[in-house]
Structure formats: structure tokens, C-alpha cells
């Protein structure tokens, strides 16, 4: 790192502990209280202004040092995919629905945490002894599954409460494993930038709600901040394992270990080409590895942000994660570190002149 750097790199023990707390907290879309409490506790001593808006977004401002700074919004979503209890049936079983995109095939047999007390439950199924080979050919649907809270505990929660996978955060060698790395990696990154911001920009940090069910929090946050430019900081799938038949994998989306993923196009956003070029220039000048996320589907908070008011130039940067939206995601420490570094140095080099270039 160069001498201007003030962010904490490499990632410190305390940053890692914070990520662990964030990852183990339960904050399924629409009920982000636990993560919001951690965010508020962490940033309050550093931020110049902090407020929680009507939808539950945490909006924090860290003032710039200079005159007429660019007002830059960074957004990371606090919510995670999970479940909402719909109706209790006898014996502590709950019918449930999925919030956000989860493949029903990954649900069967998973331990879950239910409600604000994190009561243990399990998404059970009939054991192999009692199923026929034909039955086992078909994936079970969400309608056929129940969250089983083990009788009495069923009375301690109510319909509408949330549940999520019970995976505990682990560090293993160069890798991180956890249930909600999407997007607690982004939340932890933003917290670090609020603590140690580049001095040249007015930093508008939005810790958003309800991203996983349609980028809902980010839209109102951007309306309120009305920034000059915005960057969504998220996690994106790495589908980088070799193909079983030995053919070239042409649809990896991103690769673990290849650095932060810069977005050109997804289903919700065409990134501002000036910001793409700026981030690539920054990475190349600073020797930070980066990758271009394969253009295609998906979306980040940028999709809601760029259409607010008279339009906002946006780009997204994601930490690549394997097994997104399953009980156990995996990321590399170094990719997180390089994402933080790219954002810091990208912001540090950002000036209004960039937007006098033609888009």
C-alpha cells in the first residue's frame, strides 16, 4: 500500500471479528434489526451524521475535508435471503415462504435459526429408508417442506417472524465460510470506509434494507442522499469450478481469488463507463488485482439508485463468493482486502473532472 492509505490493510483481527458478528447475526429482508444495531454501534463514534430512515436504511455521512467535494454514495445491503414463517401446524411445525432467491433444492435437511431468540429448528424431510427411488428423483418444493421447531418452541414464535440458515462463520486458511457473506462483506467494507474515509469525498454510506427482494431500500436511500455518484458494494457468485466433462467453463460469472469484480452490465444496471474506466485505471496503477464480472443477469442496489431523481452515475463492485444464496458461502480474505483497497483508492482519485468527460 502507498503512504496515503489509511484504511486498515491487511484485514485486521478486529475487522475479521466484526465480519464474524455480522455474518452470524440474523437479518432476513424486512427485519434487519440485528445487523442495523451492529452497524450503528460501529459507525456512531466516527460518522458526522447518522440516521435511520422510514424503511430502516442506515444513512451515515462522513464529511469531506476540502471545498466542493463530490458527494459519493456507497451502498451495501444489510439483509440476507431467508424464510418467513407463515402458519403454525401441530407439533411446532411451521409452513414458511422463502424471501429472496433460494433454490428449494438446497433447503432439505438444513438447521435454521428462528425468530429474534435464534431458536433452533430444522427443515426436515422423510429419511431415505422410507422413500422410494422414484420419489427421490424429484426435488421437494417449498410447499412440501416445514420448519420443525421441536414442539414447545413452536409457541415462542409467531407467523411473520424470520428464519435463516444456522451456519456459523468460520475462517479456514485463506478462506471465509458463512451464511450471509452476501452482503455482510459489503457491510464490513463500508463500516471500515466510514471509520477511515478518503478525505477528498463527502462519503454518504447507505446500509440498505430489502435488497434481496427487489432493491427496495436503496431507491429511497438514493432519493434522500441525492448523490453525485454512487457505488454499490456487494457480493456476486463465483461459479468457477471446472466443468465435470472437462470442457472450458465459459459461464463462471466471477472467479475466487481474482480480485474485486467490477460490473459492466447486469439485468438492472448498465454501469457508467466513466466509472468502469476509473476503477480499472485505479486498479492497474495501484497493482490491485480485479476482474470484470461477466455481463448478464442479476442486480445490485445500483439498479435502484441510478434511476432516482435526475439520474445518478453508478457502478458496482463485488467480492466474489462461491455458493451464494445457499447455507454456506465461501470467499477469499484476499478478495475482500483487494475490494476494500480498490474502493479506497478509487474514491481517493475521484474528482468532478471525471464527469466532464462524455459518458
Amino acid at each position, binding site marked *: 500500500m502507498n503512504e496515503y492509505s489509511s484504511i486498515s490493510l491487511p484485514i485486521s483481527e478486529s475487522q475479521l471479528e466484526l465480519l464474524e458478528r455480522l455474518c452470524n447475526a440474523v437479518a432476513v429482508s424486512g427485519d434487519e434489526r440485528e445487523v442495523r444495531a451492529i452497524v450503528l454501534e460501529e459507525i456512531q463514534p466516527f460518522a458526522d451524521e447518522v440516521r435511520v430512515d422510514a424503511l430502516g436504511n442506515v444513512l451515515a455521512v462522513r464529511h469531506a475535508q476540502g471545498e466542493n467535494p463530490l458527494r459519493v454514495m456507497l451502498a451495501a445491503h444489510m439483509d440476507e435471503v431467508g424464510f418467513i414463517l407463515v402458519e403454525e401446524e401441530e407439533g411446532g411445525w411451521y409452513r414458511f415462504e422463502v424471501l429472496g432467491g433460494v433454490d428449494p433444492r438446497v433447503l432439505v435437511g438444513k438447521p435454521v435459526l428462528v425468530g429474534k431468540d435464534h431458536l433452533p429448528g430444522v427443515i426436515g424431510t422423510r429419511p431415505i429408508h422410507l422413500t422410494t427411488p422414484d420419489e427421490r428423483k424429484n426435488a421437494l418444493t417449498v410447499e412440501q417442506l416445514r420448519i420443525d421447531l421441536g414442539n414447545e418452541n413452536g409457541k415462542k414464535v409467531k407467523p411473520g417472524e424470520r428464519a435463516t440458515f444456522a451456519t456459523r462463520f468460520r475462517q479456514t486458511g485463506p478462506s471465509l465460510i458463512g451464511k450471509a457473506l452476501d452482503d455482510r462483506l459489503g457491510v464490513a467494507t463500508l463500516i471500515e470506509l466510514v471509520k477511515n474515509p478518503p478525505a477528498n469525498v463527502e462519503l454518504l454510506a447507505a446500509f440498505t434494507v430489502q435488497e434481496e427482494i427487489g432493491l427496495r431500500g436503496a431507491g429511497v436511500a438514493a432519493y434522500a442522499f441525492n448523490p453525485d455518484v454512487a457505488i454499490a458494494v456487494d457480493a456476486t457468485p463465483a461459479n468457477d469450478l471446472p466443468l465435470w466433462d472437462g470442457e472450458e467453463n465459459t459461464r463462471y460469472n466471477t472467479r475466487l481469488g481474482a480480485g474485486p469484480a467490477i460490473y459492466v452490465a447486469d439485468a438492472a444496471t448498465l454501469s457508467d463507463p466513466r466509472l468502469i474506466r476509473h476503477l480499472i485505471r485505479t486498479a492497474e496503477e495501484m497493482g490491485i488485482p480485479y476482474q470484470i464480472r461477466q455481463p448478464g443477469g442479476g442486480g445490485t442496489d445500483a439498479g435502484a439508485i441510478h434511476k432516482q431523481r435526475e*439520474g445518478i452515475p453508478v457502478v458496482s463492485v463485488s467480492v466474489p463468493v462461491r455458493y451464494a444464496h445457499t447455507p454456506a458461502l465461501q470467499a477469499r480474505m484476499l478478495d475482500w482486502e483487494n475490494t476494500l483497497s480498490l474502493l479506497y483508492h478509487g474514491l481517493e482519485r475521484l474528482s468532478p473532472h471525471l464527469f466532464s468527460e462524455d459518458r
Partner: protein
Amino acid sequence: MKELIQSLVEMTAPSGYEAPIRELIQQEVKDYADEVRVDALGNLVVRKGQKSSSGKRIMLAAHMDEIGLIATHIDENGFVRFSTIGGVRPHTLYGGRVRFLNGTAGVIGGERLENMERVHGFEKLFIDVGATSREDCPVRVGDVAGFERPFLDLGKRLVAKSMDDRISVAVMIETLRRLKDTPHEVFFVFTTQEEVGVRGATTAAFGVDPELGIAVDVTGTGDTPKGVKMAVALGKGPAIKVKDSGMIADPRVVRWMADTAEQAAIPYQLEILEGGSTDARAMQLSRAGVPAGCLSIPCRYIHTPSEMVDFDDVQNSVRLLTALLQSPVDLK
């Protein structure tokens, strides 16, 4: 006007990458405009006229962008895999030619067809730019390409890759030039990112804050062999949109447009489009809501490299749009 149309349709400017076409339009309009600006999403906002006591603030919108392709992977032999920008369909791609914004040309090929009746999806198609390896391929992941096809003048009928929506851009430019006097403050907005979900018009409408919005765009026809059933045909005049799958036009706007056409003896058709929508949707839903409608130019083979319009329809669209803007508007 055909020269203007040719210069507009032959330019490559897929959604999000409208800079070259914006530059061209800027040159064409600057001598006729009272004010020209470019907003954060790249919309070109051209103002003409002052709002008089009998006038309104009117926003017209025609989109500058076109559908295109974007590179997702360069394989070890230099073939480019791609994803799409906007509503591209696989059966229109075989044998097509594209040009990347960095100038690289390429042709579209596909993996072996097992069955001639079943067209490959995009994942089995690729762009061949003449490279032999990943290293010598001049295309990078994220590079954007447009379709390449020269303008074709069949006399009464005109064909091009991007009549959607450059023909409307031409109609708006021509209208701006002819509009000598108007009681309205008219914003001719050349929008971005329409093909990916009317994104540019959304923010442009917020900025202009119009009292009345009219999109100018192409619409499909029902006049080809065993085509879709639709009561719009080439050559029967501009179509006044009543409804599409994203918007019900304000009935007062529809009546005003139809009455104006009749008074000026301009042929017109009424349009109900079952699939698709236009920038009018974005204007209608802007802020607290805006009365909105759409002047549609009938077009065959939309979203193929050979979109066809009728030149009489084009000229009548200019006449109708000019007539609409010349007098006070009384919506009723």
C-alpha cells in the same frame, strides 16, 4: 431527410453507450434549439420555445439507443461468448455481423445444430472476430457490440438495423427544424437506455417535470404473411397509441392527437400493441403523474437487423408532430 435517416441508422450506439449518436444529434439540432444539455444518464435534452399563457411544458422523447451484444468470455481459441443488451432474439443472429465499439468486426456463429427446427439459445452462439487465441483476440469481457447492416432505400420503404428508434429521432429533429412558432416550452429529449427498461426517460422526465409527455417510437404491424394479428399497417399513417403492455395512453391525449390529425388531413391509425412499451410509460409515472401518449411509426421486423418503415408514414409523422406543437393544447 433520407440522408439524415441514413446517418442516424448506420451509427452504432447500444444502450448505455450512446455517446456517438448523441454527438451527431447535437450537431443536427444546435442551430434550432434555445438550450441543449446532457444529464447524468446521458439523455440529450433540447429545449425550444417559451411557455406562453396558453402553452404547456411538453416533453417529447425518442430513444437514441439500440439493442446490441456484450462480450462475456473469450475462449482459448479466441471465440467471443456474449450476452445481450435489450430484446435480442437468437433466431435473428445466425450469420449476422457485428462491430464492437473498439472497431473490431465479427460474425456470429453457432455450435453444431442437432436439429434444424430448434434454434440455439445465446449460450451456444459465439462471435468470431478472426482471432486464433485468447491472447490475440482484440475483444475483452464487457466490450459492447452493435449489429452492422447498411441502410437500404427501397423508394417508398426504408430498411435499417436501428429504425427502432432512430427513425423517431429523425422525425423529432425534422419537427424541431420545421417548428417556427409554438406557444409551448417544448423539450425534445433524446433518451438513453430505453431498450433495457425505459431508464433514461425515467430520470429525464423527473428533470424536465413536464405537464404533457409524448413518446415517439416504432410499433409493430399486422400486415405480413401469417404475422401477428394487429390493426396497424405500413403506409396507412402514423399510429396513435391507445394502449401497450406497459401503458394506457391518456384518453384525452389520444383524442387530441386524433382530432389534430383529422383537422390537418393527415392519415392516422389507432394502435393497440400487445407486447412492449415505450418511454411514454416512464413519463406517465414520473413524480405525481403526467398525461402521456405516444406517436408510433409502424415498423416491420422490429429487433431484427432489417427493420422496415414507410417513408410516407415518416413524413406524415413529422407533419402530425409539428401540428400538435403549433397550437395550444386543450385536453378534454
